[in-house]
């Protein structure tokens, strides 16, 4: 019945991305080794990229792979191995009694309530854009996104540039070893 309503390739793509996303996400929160968690995170990010492509967000899918899987996860792996915490962690003990049960119940209630709320009303509300042509026409997703970023969202774009500079300076300051401390450690 579903196959007659929606194209089979679209369903296959959705199922593939959903499997990648969910298996990866469950892996991130359950595996003991942080390196394995980072690999599972790549799997989830790749699944999200597949979902982006399926919804004609081509540029964002490329950025997702390059920035997230290429840069952020590599940064995670670098820190994991730099600190030498790539050994198995104890995940069976609960530091707070009943923490997992409460967290699970809270999350399930919230997500189920959210889905129920959306399902009982319209899933998507809001006015369909009339200014831009439909995204699905396939005429240059990059061009549309570039036009939006450099005209409507120009101020936000410039602000992110400043944010990135501040983040780089902050990270360098945080990770820098104090010179005086180093001398004391050497003399001691």
């Amino acid at each position, binding site marked *: 019945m579903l196959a007659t309503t*929606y*194209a089979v390739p*679209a369903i296959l793509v*959705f199922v593939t*991305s*959903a499997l990648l*996303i*969910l298996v990866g*996400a*469950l892996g*991130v*929160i359950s595996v003991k080794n*942080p390196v394995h968690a*980072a690999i599972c*995170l790549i799997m*989830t*990010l790749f699944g999200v990229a597949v*979902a982006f492509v399926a*919804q004609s*967000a081509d540029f*964002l899918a490329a*950025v*997702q792979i390059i*920035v997230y899987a290429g840069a*952020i996860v590599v*940064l*995670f792996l670098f*820190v994991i191995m730099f*600190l030498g*915490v790539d050994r198995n962690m104890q*995940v069976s003990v609960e*530091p707070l009694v009943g*923490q997992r049960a409460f*967290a699970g119940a*809270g*999350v*399930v209630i*919230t*997500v189920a309530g959210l889905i129920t709320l*959306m399902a009982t009303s319209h*899933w*998507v509300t809001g006015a369909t*854009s009339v200014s*831009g042509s*439909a*995204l*699905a026409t396939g005429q240059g*997703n990059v061009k*549309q*996104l570039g*036009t*939006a970023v450099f005209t*409507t969202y120009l101020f936000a774009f410039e602000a*992110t540039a400043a944010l*990135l500079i501040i983040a780089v300076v*902050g*990270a*360098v300051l*945080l*990770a820098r070893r104090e010179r005086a401390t180093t001398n004391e450690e050497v003399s001691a």
Partner: protein
Amino acid sequence: MNVPAAWYLVLAAVLFGIGAFGLLTRRSALIMFMCVELMLNAVNLTFVTFSRTLSDISGQASVFFVMVVAAAEVTVGLGIVVAVFRRRSSTSVDELSELKG
């Protein structure tokens, strides 16, 4: 025809829930950062789904900015993790309890 937006929205909601559960239960700061990334990706997926359904590019522009902020957040966050590890030799957030009354 593409699958309905509802499927992607439910998928994103479940992904957000998994990330939130991990953030609440795991005690390693590194894993908690990864769970934050999961939740941010769920939000990005929702943005793109709305963008496709409403034929509005603004959703994708928002995802662009979310990605930039996520990159900055991870950079500073991991810097903090490295700084904390220097003092405590541990990435567990349960160790950071100096402010407890």
